[in-house]
């Protein structure tokens, strides 16, 4: 099997603006085909990091590579699509002209461009606005056309900086579907976001960044493993049955007919359920609770809000 260089690889990437450190020491690798979430509070250095990847900002020190090529190699960006955070475009262009311009900058052949533009406008739901000037676009529409622009060249790596910040729920669902679709086609996605629910749904792996440093990288599955909690609603509970639960559960809380249990091993869920039924308890609902990414975010990043 030929060696394929990772789409993104950075080592000790650092950016200082004067005496302000925006990115302190960024070391990460994004593997081919994965959807990588880059999480962190506002001002943590996410956008600066992304801009370094695209050579919009040059690092103070450290090194980065896209598909094995140095960041300042312009040729490599032919394989990359990018949607900036503050998507501001030449608003005197029409939607189709805007896409044609950027297709030219990708050096796409004209017949390919002609075919690709309607395809993309359809994908982002802007077909009806093909001939409209971007000046007349709403914020959400601009974000959609920006997304289309980032997909023109059928990139192998798509870098999205807060792609849903200006979108309504319909638009967010659209972005999510597009990301899912990209993953199915083996495209690598680097998603900068502080919309945790979105990251939770779309990402394979996440990195938490704070003060310009990655403080934890983990697959989403690994993150979600840990303590499990179950909410049970049941009749005919008594203290004997409840104390019997301590065999599997760390913590048992009772509030009328509501039971809150925490346990460490997922396999015990079935055992507990069977135990309750065998003890003559009428179980109305038995719902395991996932620890949300938001809880984890707060846990890992902290709530200090100090940046």
């Amino acid at each position, binding site marked *: 099997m030929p060696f394929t260089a990772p789409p993104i690889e950075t080592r000790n990437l650092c950016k200082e*603006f004067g005496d302000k450190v925006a990115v302190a020491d960024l070391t990460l690798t994004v593997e081919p085909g994965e959807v990588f979430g880059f999480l962190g509070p506002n001002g943590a250095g996410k956008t600066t990091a992304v*801009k370094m990847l*695209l*050579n*919009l*900002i*040059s690092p103070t020190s450290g090194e980065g590579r896209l598909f094995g090529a140095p960041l300042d190699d*312009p*040729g*490599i*960006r*032919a394989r*990359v699509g*990018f949607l*900036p955070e*503050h*998507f*501001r*475009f*030449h608003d*005197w*262009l029409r939607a189709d002209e805007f896409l044609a*311009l*950027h297709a*030219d*900058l*990708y*050096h796409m052949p004209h017949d390919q461009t002609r075919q690709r533009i309607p395809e993309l406008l359809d994908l982002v739901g802007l077909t009806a606005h093909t001939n409209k000037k971007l000046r007349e676009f709403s914020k959400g529409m601009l974000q959609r056309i*920006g997304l289309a*622009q980032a997909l023109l060249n059928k990139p192998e790596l798509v870098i999205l900086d807060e792609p849903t910040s200006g979108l309504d729920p319909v638009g967010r669902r659209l972005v999510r579907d597009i990301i899912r679709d990209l993953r199915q086609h083996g495209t690598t996605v680097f998603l900068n976001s502080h919309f945790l629910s979105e990251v939770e749904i779309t990402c394979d792996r996440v990195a938490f960044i704070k003060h310009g440093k990655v403080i934890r990288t983990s697959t989403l599955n690994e993150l979600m493993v840990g303590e499990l909690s179950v909410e049970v609603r049941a009749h005919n509970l008594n203290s004997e049955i409840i104390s019997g639960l301590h065999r599997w559960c760390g913590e048992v809380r009772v509030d009328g007919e509501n039971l809150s249990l925490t346990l460490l091993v997922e396999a015990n869920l079935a055992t507990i359920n069977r135990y309750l039924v065998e003890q003559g308890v009428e179980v109305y609902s038995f719902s395991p609770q996932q620890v949300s990414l938001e809880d984890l975010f707060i846990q890992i990043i902290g709530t200090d809000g100090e940046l």
Partner: protein
Amino acid sequence: MSTFTIARLTFLEAARRKILLAALLLGLLFLIIYGLGFHFLIVETEKSVGNNNLLQLNEIRNFLLMAGMFVVNFLTSIMIVLTSVDTLSGEISSGTIQTLASKPIRRWEIVMGKWLGFAGMLTLYLLLMGGGVMVIVFLRTGYTAPHPLRALELIWLNALVLLSFSILGGTTLSTLANGVLVFGLYGIAFLGGWIEQIGSFLPNQAASHTAVNIGIITSLIMPSEALWKRAAHELQSPLVAALGFSPFSSAYYPSLLMVVYAALYTVITLTLAVLLFNQRDL
């Protein structure tokens, strides 16, 4: 090539923002007014000096042509700075540059593309305006200046110098600061040129020398006025040139070396612009 894509985009922007239309309409208005003014002045002159006094008639024709070209040079200079002063700094501050520069494009291609786009526009503008003035004078009287093409080339180079400088400023300065800088330098060069011209007539040798030196130094800082002075010399009728004084030119005109210097100045300014833009965080 991406340079041409950016040049095309620059043209398209000027067209879409009605800059081309405004320049064209006002240019035509200028030519109409110039043509009418020229016509009436020539009619009056012919009445007073007579149709046969060709020597005197040609002096008047030359003077009016020079006046027209003086305004054309001034307008071309102002137009090129006004239109280009915002092109890099504006795109950087609005963020539109980010989608451009993150494409497989080199930074110099953005700088050169913009330069090329504006250079194309100013060439068309100068041909319309300068060519228009010369054609009006020729059609009405059959008069042509001694070296019209050389004069146009020098005015063109003057505009390219200003364009390159405003592109250079745009790589690091804000739009307003850049405008202040370029117009400031243009003003200094203008002032230096007049100090040199008037000073050269001073009876006091030392003072005259100082004035000329001031002119030389300012034209090294910004060669725009020097290029006009030489363009004016190329347009000047031999008689006035021999007399050595008119409002538009003087006996002292910049040498060919100054033209070479201005060309080099443009190349160096552009190179510097590319280097600075390469380092610029967008």
